């Protein structure tokens, strides 16, 4: 089944759906930065406390992500091979910029995810983070985030990556429904709306955090 064109597109949709779910949960969790250090650090500690769930989720995400990237690249190569000689002139009629740049936006997101993991999860970009503790003795995630996003270069890279994520999702969300055939005249307007609203909400939510820290709206309690 997963050797067929339609089977692999369905797999692309299903893995993408799982990743989208994670992106939404991740954003909601992170928005606790607006509730202050205590809320965010307690949330981080709670996640670390649920080792089975945490590692289960990490493993699932890794598999979904790897499958999604692998399929994306494999399908792209096959699709190029299906037209060995291109047109001298070719005019697109209705494919959006998002549709035509899925591989590019996908690769940007891949690069960003690697950077993001190195930055906050493995503290490889700014290694001093690994040592920081808050007054309650928990890892001080809040101070780490605030310190990270006070750096305009890092904030800019996060914002740009989120814009690419939004572009990717603008094509991806309606595509998910198309690829598994979940379309119906009654629900198509809803699918179109979701295709705009979901990327907008995710980009707005994710971009608001680094920007409000960079501009000193959030995180004033953290020194230095």
């Amino acid at each position, binding site marked *: 089944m997963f050797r067929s*064109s339609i089977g692999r597109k369905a797999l692309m949709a299903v893995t993408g759906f799982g990743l989208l779910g994670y992106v939404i949960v991740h954003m909601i969790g992170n928005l606790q930065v607006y509730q202050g250090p205590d809320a965010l650090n307690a949330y981080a500690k709670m996640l670390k406390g649920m080792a089975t769930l945490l590692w289960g989720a990490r493993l699932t995400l890794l598999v979904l992500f790897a499958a999604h990237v692998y399929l994306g690249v494999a399908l792209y190569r096959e*699709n190029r091979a299906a037209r060995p000689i291109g047109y001298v002139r070719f005019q697109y009629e209705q494919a959006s910029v998002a549709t035509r740049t899925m591989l590019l936006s996908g690769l940007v997101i891949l690069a960003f995810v690697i950077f993001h993991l190195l930055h906050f999860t493995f503290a490889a970009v700014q290694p001093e983070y690994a040592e920081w503790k808050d007054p309650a003795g928990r890892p001080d995630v809040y101070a780490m985030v605030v310190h990270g996003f006070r750096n305009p270069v890092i904030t800019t890279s996060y914002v740009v990556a989120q814009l690419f994520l939004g572009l990717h999702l603008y094509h991806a969300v309606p595509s998910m429904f198309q690829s598994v055939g979940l379309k119906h*005249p009654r629900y198509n307007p809803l699918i179109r709306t979701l295709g705009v609203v979901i990327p907008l909400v995710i980009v707005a939510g994710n971009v608001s955090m680094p920007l409000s820290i960079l501009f000193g709206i959030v995180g004033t309690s953290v020194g230095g």
Partner: protein
Amino acid sequence: MRVTLHVWRQKNARSEGKLVTYQVPQVDPDMSFLEMLDVLNEELVGKGEEPIAFDYDCREGICGTCSLVINGRPHGPEGGAATCQVYMRNFHDGDEIYIEPWRARAFPLIKDLVVDRSAFDRVIQAGGFVSVNTGGTPDGNTLPIAKTTQEKAMDAAACIGCGACVAACPNASAMLFVAAKVSHLGLLPQGQPERARRARKMVAQMDAEGFGNCSNYFECEAACPKEISVEFIAWMNRDYLKARLTEPDTVTPGMGAKVGPSPVAGHDATAKKHPVA
């Protein structure tokens, strides 16, 4: 009016092709695009040159034989029309017009602007039919079909198999063609007995022919001279996935041996309820 043409010329499948420029000085705006090429060809023959090879048959937009990518658009600038329905009044005096063949690995070039579209025939042979046992003609109105269902099936059946969807798709995917064929039969009661097998076999053959995958560009829909909707691709995706998830893996591309009891159109015990539009 006067136009400048840049036409893809290629002697045969093995030789190198290139764009060759021709001037057509006396074009009547009421000529069809193909008549304009006929005029140019007569001139070429008169000069002892090889005329431009291009496909056509009915010249009234119903046979699906004509092709041509005109200025980067399959079937040219007119939406919802085949190349034979494009007129020179769609262009302006002094226009430069690029004419290229359908480009796809699954449509090998034969000569100039003519490509071999028999891959489509093999996809149809794999499952684009209903098996009807011989016998008396069924009485009229014995198979009630809802009007909405009829119309939807007819929208899909409008496909003339020209291949513009493949030509327009950046992936050279044949999904719109196969979707139209799978769903125009799959929507009707006569198509139910073979519905799952049809979806599986036609998709397997489509993949075997070397067409690309669907990336939901929807350029096919824009190029289709019969304006067939990409909703049918979603319909086929669902039909195919359902067929794969509910039946064991036994189908191979091509005709193959029939599995299970011989179906009788519309009257088979396994025929499902009428599909909902």
